[in-house]
């Protein structure tokens, strides 16, 4: 693409598990690192990623996740989610992968734009104060399409 039409990505984060939070955060940040404009739209369970009270406690999904390599009934045992989450966090610390909170700070500093979904906020009875300050605004689905004009869209 030419100099006058900078690339742009819009990443929709619709899942709130730890393993589904990182792909969107990392992709948006890596886009910014090579000069691509990036916006993130948090919707439905993805709202947890920008929810002040929840973002430090996101867990790995052990139920209904075939990649976990364990039968679903084992994944359902109380404490299994917490165990899998602590294992994953340990591995990520070893690789120096930032926490979700730090990823949001990095994204904000990089100029990525974070938006929350209006309908999901209403549904979960959330207010602007429930969200981290890095969230720039609340958008309806129609607003999202307008803001995302010309962007490559990624749905997670």
């Amino acid at each position, binding site marked *: 693409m030419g100099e006058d039409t900078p690339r742009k990505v819009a990443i929709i984060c619709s899942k709130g598990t730890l393993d589904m939070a990182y792909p969107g955060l*990392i992709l948006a*940040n*890596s886009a*910014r*690192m*090579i*000069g*691509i404009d990036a916006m993130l739209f948090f919707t439905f369970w993805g709202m947890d990623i920008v929810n002040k009270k929840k973002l430090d406690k996101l867990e790995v999904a052990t139920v209904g996740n075939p990649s976990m390599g364990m039968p679903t009934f084992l994944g359902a045992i109380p404490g299994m989610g917490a165990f899998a989450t602590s294992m994953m966090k340990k591995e990520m610390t070893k690789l*120096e*992968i*930032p926490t979700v909170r730090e990823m949001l*700070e*990095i994204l904000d*500093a*990089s*100029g990525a734009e974070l938006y929350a979904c209006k309908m999901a906020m209403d549904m979960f009875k959330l207010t602007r104060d429930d969200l981290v300050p890095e969230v720039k605004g609340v958008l309806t689905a129609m607003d999202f399409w307008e803001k995302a004009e010309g962007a490559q869209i990624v749905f997670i």
Partner: protein
Amino acid sequence: MPTETLAGHTVELDAEGFLTDPSAWNREIAGELARRAGLALNDQHWKVIEFCRKDAQEKGEAPGVRRITQLAGVSMRDMYALFPKGPGKLAALVSGLRKPQGCI
């Protein structure tokens, strides 16, 4: 690999414009690589470049943006102000290093 003359020095660049041999780098080449990327190097840039060169020598690869912000005394916001078209590639490029392999 194409060879090019940068600031009077003949060097080899890869397809993305990175110097293939970090030891062929010098400050004049850095200035020319920066100019081509639309940058005029200032003291802050040099602080980043000097850190990247030193770190790459110790670690064997170009540091990622987060590592630079943690160890070079330059904030994330500064990095984007210094390299608006993308600090991830450009810091390594003007430092005469290969493209960073990390994702952060």
